[in-house]
């Protein structure tokens, strides 16, 4: 019996050895398993995926923006960390009322199948997003109509002044697709559109890279587009974007040479990287803030504007900022520093003013519950320690706070429905423009979550309208500045931190720059010379 077992084992070993010696499968022996060697032409990027599709018209998540920006072009684009739209597939002119925007296409540009990019492709691509009400990106086209003038000219019209339109069309969701190819694969400009399956496995764009493979849970592989004739040709033969959810793993992969770029490191992690690595640490476009509800039925103790003032001046912002790591800054207002209208300085601690305001607010020592999501760090900033510090500082100023953390998915409903008296949340722009921060105004989306209707502050509501309806850049910047200042003076929000964005690479890569829309511009990356 024992002898037969031995023979079976020997046979198994022999079969395995034969199989291994064969080496006839899909991977050759000299495959570069270290992956990230720039000389091999392969760039490996680790990021925590928020990826749902390869269809630009249905995408509205950060990793999708990063990947699709490299595969598709938009009418206008953003360069580096600048939030001023620049020409991409087209140049733009607007009318005086800022209601008509004329785009003139660069007629030399071609799609990945070699066919030219025309006005018909622009009209189809934008109308497709406008018609797909079941797409997350659909809201971007609200109030915008598209008209073809000639083969190289398209006009986008809005009913009201819309100086944010140039920023909106930089969003990768509004990428220009090869209409003929997409229509041949189920594409349509209404809810019957069925091109997502095709676009999840193929490219129909004019960007420098092509989608080689897309696995929503593991990795996306891009390869160079041989037909590309734009200004930023592919610098790598292949870019692999991998889903690595743990930032600690991203750090080890980067240090160990398994990847070239780590996108989601926190401040502490990049500080310990040392020589041989490049780090881009900048403030992000997000803001972490306190919400103080003005509805007495929701927050009897918080409803007085004086209570918000007391909280605003009771806090030591430098000590709160200590929790955020490198790249982070104190929030100077509801508009983050990179956008027009942002304030130069934030609120400072003034305990006397806080005491006086608290006395006027009618607060009588009640315990106020501070609600926040505890499983959703923003830019590496964990909410729980920030909440604990806020609790300590407010206690010193005479305000009793009880912490009430909950998972994001649980906490989001009361926040959105305006039933939280005192909470800590975050806000990021829908597109790279100051108008993305007008929802904090009275009667606006986030304002209403704080029980703050338009009648509660007609002055600030008027500033919101002025900023929204401005028809020149100068007028607009001034209006946003006035809005931000007024919000900081008497709004029911206390902006705390603009978290840092820390992207790190090994020294084989150059061109690392944070951008608020696509986080990392893959088309700007190239091997270090």
């Amino acid at each position, binding site marked *: 019996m024992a002898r037969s077992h031995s023979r079976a084992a020997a046979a198994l070993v022999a079969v395995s050895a034969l199989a291994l010696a064969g080496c006839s499968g899909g991977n050759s022996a000299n495959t570069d398993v270290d992956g990230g060697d720039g000389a091999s032409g392969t760039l490996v990027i680790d990021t925590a995926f928020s990826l749902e599709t390869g269809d630009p018209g249905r995408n*509205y998540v950060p990793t999708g923006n990063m990947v699709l920006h490299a595969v598709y072009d938009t009418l206008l684009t953003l360069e580096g960390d600048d939030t001023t739209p620049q020409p991409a597939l087209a140049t733009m002119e607007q009318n005086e009322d800022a209601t008509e925007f004329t785009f003139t296409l660069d007629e030399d540009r071609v799609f990945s199948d070699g066919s030219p990019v025309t006005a018909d492709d622009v009209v189809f691509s934008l109308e497709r997003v406008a018609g797909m009400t079941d797409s997350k990106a*659909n809201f971007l086209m609200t109030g915008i109509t598209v008209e073809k003038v000639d083969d190289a000219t398209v006009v986008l019209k809005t009913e009201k002044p819309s100086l944010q339109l140039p920023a909106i069309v930089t969003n990768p969701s509004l990428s220009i697709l090869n209409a003929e190819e997409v229509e041949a694969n189920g594409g349509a400009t209404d809810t019957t559109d069925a091109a997502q399956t095709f676009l999840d496995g193929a490219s129909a764009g004019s960007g420098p890279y092509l989608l080689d493979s897309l696995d929503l*849970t593991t*990795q996306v592989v891009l390869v160079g587009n041989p037909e590309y004739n734009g200004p930023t040709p592919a610098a790598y033969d292949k870019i692999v974007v991998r889903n690595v959810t743990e930032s600690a793993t991203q750090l080890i992969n980067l240090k160990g040479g398994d990847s070239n770029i780590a996108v989601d490191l926190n401040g502490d992690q990049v500080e310990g990287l040392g020589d041989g690595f490049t780090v881009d640490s900048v403030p992000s476009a997000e803001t972490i803030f306190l919400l103080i509800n003005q509805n007495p039925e929701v927050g009897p103790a918080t409803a007085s504007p004086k209570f918000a003032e007391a909280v605003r001046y009771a806090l030591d912002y430098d000590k709160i900022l200590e929790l955020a790591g490198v790249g982070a800054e104190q929030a100077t207002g509801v508009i983050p520093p990179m956008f027009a209208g942002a304030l130069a300085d934030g609120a400072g601690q003034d305990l006397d003013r806080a005491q006086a305001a608290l006395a006027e607010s009618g607060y009588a020592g009640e315990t106020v519950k501070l609600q926040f999501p505890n499983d959703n760090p923003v830019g590496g900033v964990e909410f729980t320690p920030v909440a604990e510090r806020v609790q300590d500082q407010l206690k010193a100023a005479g305000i009793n706070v009880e912490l009430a953390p909950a998972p994001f998915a649980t906490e989001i409903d009361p926040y959105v429905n305006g039933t939280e008296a005192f909470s800590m949340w975050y*806000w990021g722009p829908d597109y790279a423009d100051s108008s993305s921060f007008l929802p904090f105004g009275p009667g606006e989306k986030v304002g209403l979550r704080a029980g703050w209707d338009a009648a509660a502050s007609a002055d600030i509501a008027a500033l919101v309208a002025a900023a929204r309806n401005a028809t020149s850049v100068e007028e607009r910047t001034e209006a946003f500045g006035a809005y931000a200042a007024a919000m900081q003076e008497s709004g029911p929000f206390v902006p705390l931190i603009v978290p840092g964005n820390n992207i790190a690479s090994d020294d084989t890569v150059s061109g690392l720059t944070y951008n608020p829309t696509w986080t990392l511009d893959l088309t700007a990356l190239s091997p270090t010379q």
Partner: protein
Amino acid sequence: MTTSTTPARRTGAGRHTLARYLVRRAGTSVILLLGVVLVTFLLTVLVPGDPVRAALGEGASSNPATVAAYEEKYGLDKSVPERFVLYLGNLLQGDLGTSITTGRAVVDDLAKAVPATGEVAFYAIILSLAVAIVLGTLAAYRRGKATDQVVRVVSLVGLSIPTFWMAILAYNFFFLELGWVRGSGRLSPTITPPPRVTGFHTIDFLLNGDSVGFFDAVSHLALPVFVLSLFTIALLTRFIRTSVLEVLDADYARAARAKGLSGPRVVFGYVLRGAALPILTMVGIAFGTLLSGTVLVEAVFAWPGLGTYAYNAAKGLDLLAVTGVGLVVGVIYLVINLVIDILYGALDPRVRLS
């Protein structure tokens, strides 16, 4: 799980008795499975929060047309009883619905995630069992001596170390410091996955005769298997030690030793066979524990398995995906229990008659 045994009644229990036993156990499993489906579904419904808002985010959820389209597409515009009946109807046709976070069929998502976790868990349980049998038996044979003390202390440490922390530590040491293993994920970025046959990369690469892919897969598997095994090895070692100690004192084991049989023959011929049934039970429990431990290990090693899928589904309030995961885990537990009970029944006639 049946663990008790009753005195043997030699009434000619044979093939028919075993068949009846199997049918009875399978029937019980189906009822339990229905219970799992009902409980999982109700739990996901009771969790506060709006799945559509969680899926759409701030911008899109302010668009009523998109919200309505999502609610209709994912059946969230229907009442809970309607949704449950619909779910059961679809389930009978093998359809677990569509994930609101990935937009794909939950069945397809699970078909990718389950083999990834299964491969780690399979090798981890094999490794755990092999190591634990050696350590547990050795400790029992050397009861009270230095070897026994060392094994007990080491197994206690293994039970106490947080898996997540151990995973980070091991990855840092074996990958970054020593370079013995490759990076995170199931394969290196430049390796092409094998044509799918079993879903286990190691086996599929072998079947494809791809040695480069095989060794790459093994190199990626090594650490997750090692980390996952530590807790299970500790758990099983302590249990096997206790079980072996009990058998060592049994008359038949003492008689075997008295006859002058060699140590290994006593161990494998008498002691381990005698302790096999309770060990089998414990292996089933350990396998379940191992599966639940994959969530954290998968996160550290960027392993695209069931744990990662479950975590993302729960975080995104993806109700059908969560229910699907609950169903798969329920089925795995039921199958483990069923297999163990069948093995019990096959090994010990007293069980199937009880």
